[in-house]
């Protein structure tokens, strides 16, 4: 084994191992990994050629005295998104599009900004350098106006050219943390060992570039909040439950955190569980990891891990553990709207147990944070709740 055994004895992981077997069997039945659709990892020359083709089209339009325009797929429209159990949310093959015209007062500015960012991407790819979205924004913050404009245009370009954002040499800023039985080598040769200590390792910004991943982990635990992640670090959870990997996106996960989770699944096919608050926001974050987000559905194949299971905190756990009412929080109107929205999403229909848990929440009109478990003891989460869940298969 790569790591000194510090965790429970092997029998502790029997249920986990059987779960893993079932996951592998499902993969084999499904014919292996689903084909990579949507965007792909394009080579630099492919990206440059794609951009040049766009420019050629524009110039040809102008030569014909026609106003050039971009046809952008409506990424964030439900009518353009379908659900597949093996992939999650992904864009349909024939999407509705919108036109960004150069001769319309309303869209000429966006037309120009798309060209601007295309030219910047062109330079990045040519020079084999990378920039974050934030870097792009700060090259001319007055021109772009705000970060959201830049983010949306970059996603539109990625969708339009059918290449991943990484291939555009635009990085997203990583905010996630990882800890546990994992080591790898980054693109620049840096060796990283995530073995638990008092601190965690930042999720790298170049996930595609990391290689030589090594782990003995029996499971990956995705933790919604940084506070919970730190608590588990403080409780030495990684060693107590060794071998395992813990990762957090600190709320809504960034692209790199999602890519890393995907990479861990693709590489090791070990069970992935989520530990989120028993509230609609937590459930939504879990769904992002599992099925993807609407806005990034065009890159679903690189980002989603449909095999993820919901470990906790389940709404049914609140009743089972007799969590006192003063530890619970009433659902706000916004919570209820979000919960209703999640219940209407296509992927919930194939998750009857998830639906049931959400209905329990809806009926009780109450939510709870993971920290509610501290009413039992301060280390109840790491000492009792999670070990029991993992040992006896308390996931859905």
């Amino acid at each position, binding site marked *: 084994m790569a790591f000194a055994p510090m965790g429970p004895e092997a029998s502790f992981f029997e249920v986990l191992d059987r779960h893993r077997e079932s996951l592998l069997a499902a993969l084999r039945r499904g014919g292996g990994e689903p084909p990579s659709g949507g965007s792909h990892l394009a080579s630099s020359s492919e990206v440059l050629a794609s951009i040049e083709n766009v*420019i*050629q089209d524009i*110039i040809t339009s*102008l030569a014909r005295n026609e*106003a050039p325009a971009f046809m952008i797929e409506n990424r964030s429209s439900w009518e353009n998104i379908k659900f597949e159990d093996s992939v999650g949310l992904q864009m349909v093959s024939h999407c509705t599009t919108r036109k960004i015209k150069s001769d*319309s007062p309303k869209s000429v500015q966006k037309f*120009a900004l798309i060209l601007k960012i295309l*030219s910047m991407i062109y330079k990045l790819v040519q020079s084999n350098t990378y920039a974050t979205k934030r870097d792009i924004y700060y090259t001319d913050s007055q021109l772009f106006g705000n970060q959201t404009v830049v983010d949306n245009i970059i996603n539109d370009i990625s969708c339009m050219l059918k290449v991943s954002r990484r291939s555009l040499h635009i990085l997203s800023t990583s905010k996630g943390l990882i800890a546990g039985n994992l080591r790898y080598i980054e693109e620049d040769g840096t060796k990283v060992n995530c073995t638990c200590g008092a601190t965690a390792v930042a999720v790298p910004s170049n996930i595609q570039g990391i290689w030589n991943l090594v782990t003995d982990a029996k499971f990956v635990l995705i933790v919604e909040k940084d506070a919970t992640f730190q608590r588990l670090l403080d409780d030495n959870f990684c060693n107590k439950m060794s071998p395992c990997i813990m990762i957090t996106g600190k709320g809504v996960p960034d692209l790199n955190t999602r890519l890393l989770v995907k990479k861990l699944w693709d590489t090791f096919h070990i069970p992935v569980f989520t530990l989120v608050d028993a509230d609609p926001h937590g459930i939504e974050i879990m769904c992002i990891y599992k099925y993807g987000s609407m806005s990034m559905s065009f890159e679903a194949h690189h980002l989603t891990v449909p095999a993820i299971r919901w470990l906790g905190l389940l709404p049914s756990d609140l009743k089972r553990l007799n969590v006192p009412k003063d530890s619970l929080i009433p659902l706000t109107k916004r919570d209820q709207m979000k919960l209703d929205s999640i219940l209407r999403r296509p992927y919930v229909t194939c998750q009857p147990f998830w639906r049931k848990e959400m209905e329990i929440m809806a009926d009780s009109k109450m939510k709870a944070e993971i920290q509610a478990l501290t009413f039992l003891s301060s280390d109840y989460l790491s000492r009792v709740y999670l070990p029991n869940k993992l040992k006896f298969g308390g996931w859905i």
Partner: protein
Amino acid sequence: MKGTAVTVFEILRFLIIHWKCDIEVSKGVLLEGQLVISIEGLNSKHQANALHCVTTIASAGSLFGGTVLKKFLKEIQSILPGISAKLTWTSEESSYSQDMTGVTPFQMIFEVDEKPRTLMTDCLVIKHVLRKIIMVHPKIRFNFTVKVNGILSTEFFGRPKFDTIESYCSRIHPVLGHPVMLFIPDDVAGMDLLGELILTPAVALCPSPKVFSNQLNSISSVSIFLYGPLGLPLILSTWEQPMTTFFKDTSSLIDWKKYHLCMVPNLDLNLDRDLLLPDVSYQVESREGDQSQNMDLQGQTLLLFLFVDFHSAFPVQQMEIWGVYALLTTHLNAILVESHSVVQDSIQFIVDQVLEQHHQAAKAQQKLQASLSVAVNSIMSILTGSTRSSFRKMCLQTLQAGDTQEFGTKLHKLFCEITQHQFLHHCSCEVKQQLILEKKDSAQSTEDTPDNSSLELLTDTSGQAENKRLKRGSPSVEDMRTLYSARAPSLSEAALGGRAPTAAPLTPSGREACETHSRALTPGRASLGNHLEDALWLQEVSNLSEWLSPSPGP
């Protein structure tokens, strides 16, 4: 003795008043017809260094019925006692028939002796008056001929025929202001009016901001046009010194300080220039110490049209209108001074609206230019950075450019052309044209209608006499009513929808703009638009009092 110019104008004015009042022109129809004015001057046998001028005013077609001709002659002779020269009337009585619903041509002749220089000035004044008349009465055409000792010159004032469609509308789109009642000072002697004088201002920018694609200039001058009842020009009794006391104070109508403009009267109103001259003109002068305010020689002209109409609860008689003209001609200054506050409020309001629109248009234009610049630079960056020769070659070949510099120039030009075409396309005139087209599709119409009913500002491209006409937009009836139903209407809508005719290109660039616009409508469309436009125009100007609210006070 009255000179030729004054006599011609008074006859024309009386003619049009009579025409309008007696002929029962329906509300939806503009006065239409052609008048020929010819002056023949020969060396006088009675005065040295003078010309004996015979002036003929005739109708090319028919104007009104024969039964009123004699009455007209009798009345005009009583109105114009100052014409000591012979005033004769001839009519083609042989063609007159009581059964005719049509009318009979007529001809009036008077003779005066004038110095050659006086005649020359009179001719310029007459042309000035004709231009002002056709601005408001687009369907009246004038043929003005002067023959002095055998040397002949002819000018036509009217709307030419057009057979091409301009791709965008370069009309000037005035904004109508709220009508206000004028106060007549007690000490102003004159007629006892059984009604009220109502002043309606209209403001526009010339050239239209939509025309100038690459720049939106600041205001450099102001031109004020005065009209009396029935849309006839007001020629003040002090026309040789047009700047009355009231107008000498440039802030009497508009507070220019709020626009950071300093206006000074422009007294250089030379009749000898073959242009439509305003009655009052101001120009911008840089404020002392304000280095940022440079006088923009290519700037836009703010056009201000003051329409004074007579409103009465009783049917208005011709003599009343004549009397109102007499009153205005002599006492306009005193009336405006007395009504200063309400007049200024009304004008200020719409000037604010127009200039705000101008400001917004300028911002939009700047935004557009900035965007185009970004787009062009981005494409150039990719082109010049590309290492793929086939790509670079293809780009250059597509635009037929010899090198990247030429490519960049052509690229920018193409973007400008395409975007400006669309940016200038959005105006209610185009919407109206589209409506007319749609109507045409559903109704049969002939294609051979020579005229269109829109007023246009034109210049003679061949360098002959300039025919200036008023460009009229296409307000809907609803827009007009909306404009006048509230004290502070949504003038952005009114500006787009509400139109009053008038615009006078006073700068060469404005002339060019108006030239391009002169071919705005195809003949085929015009016939369907005629009734609509006539009705709207009539509402706007010709019958101001008819759609004003009963007490349009401040």
